[in-house]
């Protein structure tokens, strides 16, 4: 079993913490894992990327070779497009449609739609809106994790729930609950046969 995931977004969106949730799940279910991330200056509203490699064998490289990633999770419409060359031919592209507009030349939504149209089997959602049905909008990244989880059968749903609980426990039960709901809502989208 090998499963390579690319997470992309903007500093502050929870790219690294989402990647860590995936890594913890992999560890709990007995897999090897390597999670590469970019810290430092990139945190300040810049583009952020993390890579999570899950395998039952030894993982050599921290970086995913081009054209081989099983999944891209894009927390923002253009950031995932930036790393599209990493995605395998039959890879899964999951993206939020909520833009983070902090640059002057942010592309029009039509441009984004055109690009998404080229990616077969992509899943594009208004992650914030879905999160809001479960609780606060900041759980949008967990909605995306929920969607992705449906494509990683090696990781158990119960493991995701446990790790999400552990991750948010210190913020109180309410935060735990809304994140669990966000996860379920995300996963539900895939079950719904989209």
């Amino acid at each position: 079993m090998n499963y390579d995931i690319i997470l992309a977004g903007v500093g502050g969106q929870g790219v690294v913490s989402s990647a860590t949730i995936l890594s913890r799940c992999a560890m709990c279910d007995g897999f090897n894992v390597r999670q590469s991330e970019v810290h430092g200056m990139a945190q300040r509203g810049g583009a952020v990327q993390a890579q999570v490699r899950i395998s039952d064998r030894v993982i050599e490289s921290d970086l995913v070779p081009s054209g081989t990633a099983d999944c891209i999770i894009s927390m923002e419409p253009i950031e995932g497009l930036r790393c599209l060359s990493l995605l395998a031919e039959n890879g899964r592209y999951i993206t939020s449609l909520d833009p983070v507009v902090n640059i002057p030349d942010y592309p029009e939504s039509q441009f984004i739609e055109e690009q998404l149209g080229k990616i077969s089997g992509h899943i594009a959602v208004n992650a914030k809106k879905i999160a809001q049905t479960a609780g606060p909008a900041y759980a949008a990244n967990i909605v995306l994790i929920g969607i992705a989880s449906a494509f990683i059968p090696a990781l158990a749903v119960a493991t995701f729930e446990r790790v999400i609980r552990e991750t948010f426990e210190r913020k109180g039960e309410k935060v735990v609950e809304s994140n669990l709901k966000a996860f379920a809502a995300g996963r539900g989208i895939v079950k719904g046969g989209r």
Partner: protein
Amino acid sequence: MDRLLLLGDEACAMGAIDAGMSVAYGYPGTPSTEIMEFLQKHARNYGIVAKWCANEKTSYEGAMGVSYAGRRALVTMKHVGLNVAFDAFANSALQKINGGLVAAVADDPGMHSSQNEQDTRYPADFAKTACFEPRNHQEAYEMTREAFDVSEKFNIPVVVRLVTRLAHSRSIIRTRQPRAQNALNRAHVISDWMCIPACAKPNYHALLECQPRLLEYSEQSAWNTLEIKEDFREYGVITTGLGGNYYCEVAAALPSQPSHLHIGVYPIPIEKIRRLAGRVERIVVIEEGYPFVEEKLRSVIRDPIPIQGKMDGFLPYEGELNPDSVARALNLSVAHGLGIVIDKLPSRPPQLCKGCPHHDTFAVLREIVNEYKGTIITSDIGCYTLGAIPPYEIIDSASCMGASIGMAKGAAEAGYHPVIATIGDSTFLHSGLTGLVDAVTSNVNMLLLILDNGTTAMTGGQDTIMGSEQLVSIIRGAGVGPKHLHTIIPLPANHEKNVVLLRKELNYEGFSVIIARRGCIQHLKKSSKGKAAS
């Protein structure tokens, strides 16, 4: 035996803890910062001291004192930080290290957040000491542990070289039974720690005499693994560090498996290299960083055979390696994926946070520059270096920690006016104090603008070595009178007032200091959260 999901930095820190390290010093710098942050988080549990210092040199000197007292010390920094600590580092190799002294230095190939991509294996080699280069998290843990043993065995400082992709990658490590800390046991032979020529000469001799033993250790080390394939002689592969990972990632696709030497600890294992070289027609070198091994090979291999690496363009000289660049060099195909190319995406560079005090300081400077055409604004290393890019484009230089003050002084003494040096509070305390003394004593015609946000912001908000009030005392103590030493609050409401003051001090023919003091937004958020939780 615990299984832990850790950053490479944290695995290194855990290795130091389990090696019985007593004291850690360092200065924040991406990608090394998380080593100290991890140690600080667990300091109380393990009964260790883990502290930030004013800069890498004072950190290193502190570590030397710990070693002198007989205990094990770790010192952490980024690659360019070792330049600051270099005087202490190079000389410490000539002193008889007592308690193990390990420098964990994180290089930044690809310059993700650094001004260069220098390779720490060179300074380690220059100082004639040992250097470990872990390629994964378990190795970061094990090698850091072993580095302390090697340091005490050979009485030399030892380097652990990390790189960004390991420092900032997470994986699972298994820890082993920890070793107890050393008891205090001060050095007794004074000449061992004395650098006057009468002592330095025999100490240097001892360092040279240690080299064959160090080489023997490296030859025997299990970190330097040679795998010979008798039936394939066309070429052999030498890898180091993460180069080994990328090679192993793609090697399965090679039509034949070549002999392979992976180097994890230096000095380079000469005999192993010669054994490999004697069996192949050419050598391919894959190393993360400068072509360090590649250069050395030429003096080590007796019957010269072609060597391919970074110097002949076999692999890119600049930037990081990755599985793709290694695959291409080995004539292996790289997967096409979807084959969609999107070339119109706008870049999204890092930016100052909303509400950052630097915004307001830059706004004042913008007005000054509009008025005084040609003003030189030298700057420094910190969040405010973002002043170089749009929408600010206000600073004219950034070189190394503290350079803003020296450069401004030089430009002013060359006859240029007006000149403003801009530097953050942490950077000022790191390397600006000596520049301040130079500027004060020559009463040079320049303005020093200290951007005091009360923290080391760019690396994530580590505490500065002293607070804002003490900062003022230091500057006053250096001889800057109250008439030309001011504190302003960079806020939109104070804009006009602040411009007037800057204009006044620019017109003053002499040295003046303005401190623009307002807390980092991120730091305030963090500390108010901390207060709420406690």
